[in-house]
Structures are given as C-alpha cells and as structure tokens.
C-alpha cells in the first residue's frame, strides 16, 4: 500500500492512530509494533497460556483494526487498545473455561493425575504470587495486573476498563488486601512487616 511520509519511531500514538484512521495500514502496524509486547504480556497474564495469549493478541489486533472508526483521538491509544485485549481475553477465557469443564467431565477417570501434579515447583515466589492472583476475582485482578504488570496509572486503568478513578483505587486497595491474605505465611516477610502489638491512636 502506498504511504505518505511516516516515521514510526518518532510519531506519537495519536499521529499514528490518525493516519491509521485515514486508512494507512503501515501506521496501524507501527502502532501494533509499539504495543505488541504490552498486549501479549497482558493477555498472557489473563489467559495463562502462551498459545491462547497469542490467539487473543491476534484477535485483538483485528478487532482494533475494525474498531478504528470508533477510536476517540482525544484519548490515549494504549488504554484503548488494552481495553480491547481485555475484552478479547474475557471472551476467549469464557470459551476456554467451558472447554476445560467439558474436558474435565469427559476425563473423570483420570482425576488422580490432577492431584498428582499440583505440588511441583511451588517454591518459586513468582509461582506462588501467580497462583494467589488466579484466585482473586477478575474485577479486582484486572486493575492489579494493569497496575503492576503494565505499569498503568490509575487514570489509564480507568480508561482501559471504563471505570472512574475512585472505583479503580478502591478495587486496587481491595485486590492488595486479597493478595495479602492469600500470600500470608507463604512468602518471607521483612522485619518491618512483622505485626506489632499495641500502638494506634
């Protein structure tokens, strides 16, 4: 496709998005290149499987391309794109859960296998954290993942998830509390973190 002068490395997201909306596919691909790692990282945490995450990223790229007409250039592009990734991951996650439930029903006689393989590798802190994170409800887990993994600000999380900043803060606080309870006793704690009796005003 013939393109006018475009420098993907120096152009801002908004400039590239505007060119994409004007029909320049190269501009859109430059945007994707800029956000690819971020999209994959998010999908990987939400779906927990590399292949599923790649499927989700690919689907999100197509959906984003389809939805470019609805993108508001007044808003940052990254959170908008992450919002699409989150939606795709939710859809795909639901399908995968249905599939795994069905597979589990069909594989009833093999259940001891599931028990047998639940123990290996749990010493790693990262794995403990991921296991704990998996048990946090999605509405709390998403802000937490966006905040820590994507290093998104409270405002950006709000734009990604369509929430107000206050709601994001509340969910972040509750998510931290949930993680704290789930990780209690499973991770080494610093001396300053030990409970101190008494005190308070």
């Amino acid at each position: 496709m013939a393109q006018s002068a475009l420098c993907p490395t120096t152009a801002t997201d908004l400039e590239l998005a505007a060119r994409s909306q004007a029909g320049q596919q190269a501009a859109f691909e430059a945007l994707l290149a800029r956000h690819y790692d971020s999209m994959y990282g998010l999908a990987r945490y939400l779906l927990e499987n590399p292949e599923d995450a790649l499927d989700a990223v690919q689907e999100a790229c197509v959906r984003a391309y389809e939805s470019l007409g609805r993108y508001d250039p007044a808003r940052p592009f990254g959170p908008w794109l992450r919002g699409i990734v989150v939606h795709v991951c939710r859809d795909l996650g639901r399908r995968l859960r249905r599939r795994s439930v069905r597979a589990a029903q069909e594989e009833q006689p093999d259940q001891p296998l599931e028990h047998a393989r639940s123990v290996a590798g749990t010493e790693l802190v990262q794995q403990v954290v991921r296991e704990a994170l998996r048990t946090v409800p999605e509405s709390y887990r998403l802000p937490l993942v966006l905040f820590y993994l994507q290093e998104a600000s409270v405002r950006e999380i709000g734009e990604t998830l369509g929430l107000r900043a206050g709601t994001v803060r509340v969910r972040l606080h509750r998510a931290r509390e949930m993680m704290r309870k789930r990780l209690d006793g499973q991770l080494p704690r610093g001396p300053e973190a030990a409970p101190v009796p008494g005190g308070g005003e």
Partner: protein
Amino acid sequence: MRCSEAQEFTQRLLDGEDLGHDGVRLGVHLARCPRCAAEHGALKDLDGVLRRSLRPHPAPVPLASLALDLGGAAGSLRRPAAGTGGRRSWPLALCAAGLVAATAMLIVVPRLWPSGTQRWLGSAPGHTTAVAEVSAGWDSLHVFEPHTNVSHVATAAEALPSDSMAWAMGLEPVVLSIASTGRLRLSADAVISLGADEITLHKGWVRADLSGRTRPFTIRTHAGVITSRDALLRVELPVRAQRVEVFVRSGTVQIRTHGKELQLGPGESIALEPAASGAPVRAL
C-alpha cells in the same frame, strides 16, 4: 492524623499518587504509631513482591508473524470510515464463502474417498504414507503438511500423512484412528507430529488405546520415548511444567529416558523430567 487516614494515604502512596504535604503528615504519624508503621511496611513489602513477581512475559513469536495475518485479514475487511454501516458486511461474505466451500467439499470429498477408511491406511498415493484417520472432532483439528506447505482444518475421515503436524483447537474431543489398529484421543489443546507407527507429543495430552496392535506404537516426548503394543495409557505434558507424565491403565509400556529403560504395568505411573533436571525420573 488518625490511623484510618494513615491507612488511606498509604494506599494512595502505593497507587503512585503524590501526597504532597499529606506525605509529611503520614511520615510523622508512622514515626509515632507502631501499628500503622507495621501496616505500612507490610503493604510496601507486598507492593515490592507484586512488582518483582508480575513481570511481563516476552512474546514467543515476533509481531511480523501476526502482522502478516493481520494484513490478510485487513485486506479482506475493507475497513470503512467511522460511522458507516458497512463494517459488518464482511461476516456475510465470510458465511457465503464458507457455504460455497462446504458445498464444494460435499461434492469433492466423497469422490476422493469413495468408501471405507482402511482403504487408504498405509497406502496413500504420493510420496507420503497415511498413518492416521480423523474419526471424531474433525472440525477441531488443524493439520499442516510440510510437503504441500499448507495448513487446513481436517475433514471427516481425513487421512493424515506421516510427517504432518496436527493441533487441536476446537471444543470437541479429537479422536484419531491409527494404522494397524489403535486409537488416539487428543486434548483440546494438543499439538502432535505424526510418523509411521509413532507420534511426537509437543503439547497437551494424548490417551492411546493400543490394545490389539500387531506392531509397537511409540509416543515421543522431549523427556522420553514411550512404546507399547497393547497398553491403554495416557501421556501428558502439564501446562507450565517441563515434565512428562505417563499413566498406564492396562498392558505394558516401555519407556526410554536419558539412556535408561523402564517398564510400567497396569496402574503404574511416572513423571519424566527433561535432561537438565537433577532427578530424571520419579514416581507420581
């Protein structure tokens, strides 16, 4: 400052907010209140653990591979300008194309395979040999044949040549009938390479019913080679683990791993670890 305020400011601090003068007040409060100081320390510890643990995974494939796919999709999508009503016209085109393809398949496929399934097993035309047939879940199985360099969704009773690669991506279980008797049931996320009297399992699990075979059948994995001619067994590559798990329901199974030969009988199971692991074999 009250303790409840201190806790709120601590959370806002973790959220990345600049507290300004309230930050100084918080510091003063923490210096005087051991309980809030402990709470603050615990939350900061948690914050550090989450920052260190929630690290992004590097993408396993370059964007170029996705961009190519996107290019194909985008070319056919013909994205309209904002607000136009034509955006949803491509699914109709896709459905129409699918209908045409399905009709063509109904006409062409029976002519390619007139009757029966054993006719082709082991005697497919060309330079490859058919080693398995898709007997269930055919619309869930994707097949790549290196000699044609083309991948496609498997059709009902399709003959799979040796050297082909298959991966399950659907909702239905996939069952393959293998040459010289036997059945393989694949998980919905399985990836396998097919050979003559053998498969290589790259992902997921496979349940093999090899009872009544005249020749041994082999399941290769990165941690060992599993062979049997009469067993009902299951081989699994657990997600997020390097080991291979083998469960034998009936019959006998020979396993070769890291230069060792093992034999498993009915009801026995084992975990095979990759070469780098300190303990290559352990009981499950």
